[in-house]
């Protein structure tokens, strides 16, 4: 690529950086032995009551920087991120909606932050009341009999759910069920979870209309079937219309239905998984309940179950003891002999649960339905506009749910720019890219989820950008193929990253060599 003149800065995600280099310096490059953020150091005390043999002889190679250096470094790094707070982020399947600051504030209340996880119940009634209220809310909104909040993300919720399915069959002595049925469009965590739970995965195809192929399903299901894992609305961005039939087929074969709740935003407060016939499900609170994604986590994946799975719920959870003044108490393994057990040292991502409760309280029952309504409205509007702009939909005959799929196969073959190129060029236009190449069954796909918190103006701007990129591609495909142009870095060499693994800064490498 031609070098830009000196006067222009491409570099850091920040203004005023004709000077290069410093922006990508690591914290290790800023350190010097003996420098320190003095105000953060306790006065040094001796450790002489520890035997020498167990002591560390060489201090760890952590950077030694001043407080200002640290503040400036991480402030400047932060602005190299796209985030909900600075950009439209229509990442399909991820529900990147506004994360209310009020919910963040609630979870940051000193009384919540300072509570020890094993503090006695007598000094934990406020926190326990919150958890109980959230359990009840999630029961209602999913149409289930009981909830355990402990799973720490969707995937752990899936694990808990499938483990409960397994425990259920085992408790009935029904040991021959060795398979979990999963549609091809499923998220990768579904098969990975089934395997972690000791099951084999049996895939079933999705038809051209986006629904599961019922004949294949019938053929796949039998005495070996422990259950099916389904996302509805599915990751194809459509509502599985024959969910009733599917439930019957699986139930009749003795299997159970697992609901992957990642897409609950589309139907929140309108349609309930329990009513669809699901036996067990998880929710992604970091999606539907608007807790922030934190650049990769934390999340929270509570599980909810129908009556017959209640004995198997993971511990601990909270029970209300009614009386003059209601009290709340933990229910743990000692009282739940059939529980699948404990998923973490304490009780899950408590702070995320507080955020979700705060959000649920602000929404209220009407608010929940309005979330589903407007998430669906935004998706259908954006889908319509993109179709009108000449883009090809994966399921043109279908309604969008909260998300939908555009396939750029046509553009890829006629213009030589693929879905990834569009995605990267969108970054130049100030939009985070939609999910690319997922679900795997649709070629050159963009899975687009606008969420209910974006304005019409933002959606319109997105359509304009898509159209403009296509026009750019027609004129100068290289412009799009080499995007992004305006970010701190252009496309990264993934092959080098994997081949010449560099996972730690040289300063920290163990003498034995370079990692």
């Amino acid at each position, binding site marked *: 690529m031609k070098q830009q003149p000196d006067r222009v800065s491409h570099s850091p995600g920040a203004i005023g950086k004709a000077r290069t280099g410093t922006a990508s310096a690591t914290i290790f490059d800023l350190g010097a032995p003996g420098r320190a953020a003095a105000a953060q150091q306790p006065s040094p005390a001796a450790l002489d009551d520890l035997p020498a043999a167990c002591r560390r002889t060489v201090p760890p*190679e952590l950077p030694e920087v001043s407080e200002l250096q640290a503040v400036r470094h991480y402030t400047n790094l*932060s602005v190299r*991120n796209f*985030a909900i707070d600075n950009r439209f982020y229509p990442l399909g399947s991820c529900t990147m909606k506004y994360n209310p600051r009020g919910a963040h504030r609630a979870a940051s209340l000193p009384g919540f932050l300072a509570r020890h996880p094993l503090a006695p119940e007598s000094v934990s009634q406020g926190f326990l009341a919150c958890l109980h209220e959230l359990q009840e809310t999630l029961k209602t909104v999913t149409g289930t009999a009981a909830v355990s909040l402990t799973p*720490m993300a969707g995937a752990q919720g899936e694990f808990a759910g499938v483990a409960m399915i397994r425990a259920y069959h085992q408790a009935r002595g029904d040991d021959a069920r060795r398979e979990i049925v999963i549609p091809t469009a499923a998220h990768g965590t579904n098969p990975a979870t089934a395997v972690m739970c000791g099951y084999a995965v049996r895939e079933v195809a999705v038809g051209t209309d986006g629904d599961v192929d019922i004949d294949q399903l019938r053929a796949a299901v039998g005495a070996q079937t422990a259950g099916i894992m389904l996302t509805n609305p599915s990751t194809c961005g459509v509502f599985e219309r024959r969910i009733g039939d599917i439930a019957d087929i699986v139930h009749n074969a003795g299997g159970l239905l697992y609901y992957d709740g990642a897409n609950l935003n589309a139907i929140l407060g309108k349609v309930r998984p329990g009513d669809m016939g699901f036996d067990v499900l998880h929710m992604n609170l970091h999606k539907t309940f608007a807790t922030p994604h934190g650049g990769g986590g934390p999340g929270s994946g509570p599980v909810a179950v129908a009556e017959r799975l209640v004995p198997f719920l993971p511990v601990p959870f909270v029970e209300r003891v009614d009386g003059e003044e209601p009290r709340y108490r933990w229910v743990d393994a000692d009282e739940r002999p059939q529980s699948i057990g404990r998923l973490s*040292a304490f009780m899950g991502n408590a702070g995320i649960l507080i955020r979700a409760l705060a959000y649920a309280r602000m929404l209220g029952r009407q608010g929940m339905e309005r979330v589903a309504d407007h998430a*669906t409205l935004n998706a259908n509007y954006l889908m319509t506009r993109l179709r009108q702009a000449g883009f090809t939909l994966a399921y043109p005959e279908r309604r969008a749910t909260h998300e939908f799929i555009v396939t750029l196969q046509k553009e890829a073959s006629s213009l030589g720019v693929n879905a990834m190129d569009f995605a990267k060029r969108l970054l130049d236009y100030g939009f985070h890219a939609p999910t690319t190449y997922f679900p795997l069954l649709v070629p050159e796909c963009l899975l687009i989820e606008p969420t209910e918190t974006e304005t019409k103006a933002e959606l319109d701007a997105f359509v304009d950008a898509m159209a403009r990129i296509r026009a750019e591609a027609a004129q100068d495909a290289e412009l799009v193929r080499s995007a992004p142009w305006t970010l*701190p*870095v252009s496309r990264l060499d993934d092959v080098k990253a994997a081949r010449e693994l560099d996972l730690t800064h040289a*300063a920290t490498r163990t003498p034995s060599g370079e990692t």
Partner: protein
Amino acid sequence: MPFIPHTDPEVGAMLDAIGVDTVDALFDEIDDRLRGADISAIPPGENEMAMLAELAGRAREDETGPCFLGAGCYDHHIPAAVWDLAGRGEFLTAYTPYQAEASQGTLQVIYEYQSMMAALTGMDVSNASVYEGGSALAEAVLMAVRIRRRRRRTRPASDSATARVAVAGVCHPHYVETARCIVRHQGIELVETGFGPSGTGTAEALAEVAADGDLVAVVVQQPNFFGAIEPVDDLAAGAKANDALTIAVVNPVALAALKPPGQWNGDGVDIACGDGQPLGVPMASGGPSFGFLCARRDHVRQLPGRLVGRTVDANGRIGYALTLQAREQHIRRGKATSNICTNQGLLVTAATIHMALLGASGLGAVAAECQRRTRQLVAAACAVGGVTRRFDAPHFHECVLDLGRPADAVAASLAKRGIVGGLPLGAYYPELANCLLVCATERRTAADIDAFQDALRHALGSDA
């Protein structure tokens, strides 16, 4: 009160564009019988002010005086800068950095984190976090089993046989429970060796367990659940002697003072894991925190979770990207190293900033100060009639006290005085029903310790 921007005219224009009359029409593919769910049990929405007033009241209910409970979650000072920075919207509200060019902030932070954790544990590589300490141990066990099965690929028998993993000494009982819950479906059995009179595991006990059958791995927690210093070199040697991998469970603050797993028994363990909470994460009822998972370089392809690698862009500029993604579920699906997807990224960001602000010297000083305060705490407690140390092994910042009477009643009495006094051990070890596990971090002052002593005296009826 949902967070929806649309005005009525905008909704109208959007419906027109779509070609429907009502929003409800967009749901017409859904069977009528499924619609109109009854969620009337959920109260109406309230505004932020009302919500905060209610939750602030509940949070206030749970405020207490000083906390002497540790047991895997510690009340350390967190520099104000840590969360002022980690809470910036750009860190807080970004997704997983799949679009690397638009996520260099998060990616570089993770790279720095991996480097720091490698430095702290003395291991070669670190992943970008798992959920927390207990599930980190589960992942470490699964990883060890995968490594072993790959090594013995030629011996197919072992593939389906039960894999035995020894827990040498005293590992946090919740960690063991969690690991059991997660690994059990893959034919893995965890066997605890128990502890000797000084409150730690012994090479002999480990040898006995090993004698019962092939061991895949040996788990050693340092300091152990009792705060006692395990003979880690001996135990790691025992693992080696049995051709088992060694998995270390460690407290990252303690690592500023204690020999890092990368050096146990000379050339170090195979996998080191633990909970990162002591590194800038508030106790917050135990979560969100994060689990760390470090390993020898040879094992990198068996690590679960995300990894960030340094690379270059098309112009040769340094940049960072997720790498070795073929280990992960979104690429490898059923054959992935784990099902983990969302991890604990924000806490990793906080921990990175925390470690940068403390540096090696700060972390070392924190460890020493915790130790000093715990010494004072134990001395103050033992000055109360009938209280003794239960075990004589050296300990780090946590210690088991024998109160001479049921500890749960004593803890309840302390709680009445607003003191979170420690963990009664009877629920975990019936033989330790009189024992209380106590901890003092650098935040505990002399006045706090005096208050503890007073309350303890009161509880034990030895006021005089």
